[in-house]
């Protein structure tokens, strides 16, 4: 039984070792010439406008929650779509209640005004 886990352990060791090795190598061999621009926070290449520690509206959180509906949908639909032909009519029918439930949750959010920004 434990032998089956050897590949996983090897992968873990390789992945972790690579990360540690790169960090150690840059720390030992890299030259450090810091400038103000280099030391600034990295925001996808855009020059940061304000501190990243500011507070922002809870509405963004709501959008993230809304996103979950579609996220879950995609996670389920992808493997389902791949195996669709093998699943046949039965597979199609059992997916309908799931889609219905997701649609219901979206309608609920809509009706409750979660999609209105103000």
């Amino acid at each position: 039984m434990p032998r089956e886990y050897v590949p996983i352990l090897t992968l873990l060791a390789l992945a972790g070792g690579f990360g540690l090795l790169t960090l150690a190598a840059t720390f030992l061999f890299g030259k450090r010439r810091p400038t103000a621009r280099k030391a600034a926070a990295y925001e996808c290449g855009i020059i940061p406008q304000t501190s990243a520690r500011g507070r922002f509206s809870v509405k963004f959180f709501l959008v993230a929650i809304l996103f979950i509906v579609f996220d879950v949908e995609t996670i389920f639909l992808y493997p389902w779509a791949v195996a669709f032909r093998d699943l046949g009519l039965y597979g199609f029918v059992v997916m309908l209640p799931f889609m219905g439930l997701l649609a219901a949750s979206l309608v609920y959010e809509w009706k409750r005004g979660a999609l209105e920004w103000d």
Partner: protein
Amino acid sequence: MTIPFPQIHWAYLLPVLLVVGGAVFVLMWDAFFPQRERSFLVTLTLAVLASALGASLAAQPGSEAASMGGMYLYDGFTRFVFALILLSSFFSVLLSAAQRSLEEVPAGDYLGLILFATSGMMLMAATRSLLMVFVGLEIFSLALYVLAGFLRGQPEGNEAALKYFLLGSFASGFLLYGMALIFGATGSVDLMEIAQRLTTSPPSRSPAFLLGLGFVVVGLGFKVAAAPFYMWTPDVYEGSPTAVTAFMSVGPKVAAFAAFFRLLLAVGPRAGAELDAILWVMAVLTMTAGNVSAIWQSNIKRMLAYSSIAHAGYILVALAAVRRGSDLATGSFLFYMLVYALMNMGAFCVVVAAGARGEERTRIEDYAGLGYTRPALAAAMALFMVSLAGIPPTGGFVAKFYLFSAAVKVGFVWLPVIAVLNSVVSVSYYLRLVVLMYMREPGEAPARPGLLGPGWSYALAALVLAAAGVLNFGIFPSSFFELALRSTLLLN
């Protein structure tokens, strides 16, 4: 390649489907028609729960072949547990409708969450697969985290919800990690297959399996509020709306104990004596911690929280007996849960009804002289307290008697003795309330502002139902106990 599908047995699934469908309908209705009378939604929810109860009683327990690959198991045990869960949900909907502070909340959201939580509890109790246990547990836990903080304006409610959420998700992590370890050691998440692997090749001594079993016990122990994982209980019970507290004190316990039962029946006889010791210590710690702490409480919801911890301790006695292979223990567990559901719901109902004229009465001092100002309510409370303490002729006595005798029959000596001593301790705080109600003058001038709230009829119905049940099970227990005994498990 064709993928095989399990055959679906609709009659067995019907109770769960009804509850889920009802939840979606209630949510949708409130989203589309938020201005309508909320009594319609309450009636609808009660009807959904009653029809689910009818459907589960009508479905004859199925065979192994009908278990959908072990994912959904409808045996006699499931049927009894379904009845218990649906009954407790029914009561909490009645209490919610009677509670003043819940009048302003969106009824669809609230009732929908109660129904969703109910479906999760049912799924958790009716499966042989560890994964389904986890899914069911998460369904009802997430709903309960929201319900605990449903009165958003109250800081206590927010505290309760956050505490419950943080600690609960931590416990869920334990549970899931334990399941993963058990899967790693045995190669299956199906309890029956796990039991078979344990007999053929004994990995029961492997550290991974024992660690996994320990973690699962921690996770389930948290949900049933067993010592030493009960610290969240008093705070959460105190801060949540009273109707939600009543719900939390019965439904999730029934579901988690049911899953615990199935786990112990599968792995218990083969997992060695360590489990015996763990259950023994947990039971003694739980009942002692609950009873001793309850004595010092000045808030009635905290007192009932500690009392529910103590009762979880008594039920752990049945669990220890089940591990030793006692059939009697399963029946007495089911009967105990039935009586416990009724007397606990009844006690919370009195708390709700006592606050039905406005201010909630949560301090124990508030109940001084209730016997003179509201005699009927005080009499009901006295009945529930006597039953919780386990004094005849109430259901609490009979349930305890069956439970402890089951433990004696499998050779436990000290465990029942300690349990009985604990019951004696518990009399002190249960009867303190009765003494307060009847032997003290009402503190201030008895406040009688206005009429009862519109929900008084719901409170009355719940009270009458609970009181009748507690008395009935105390005086004529045998028919229901027979029923509990016959509610056997498929997996054994």
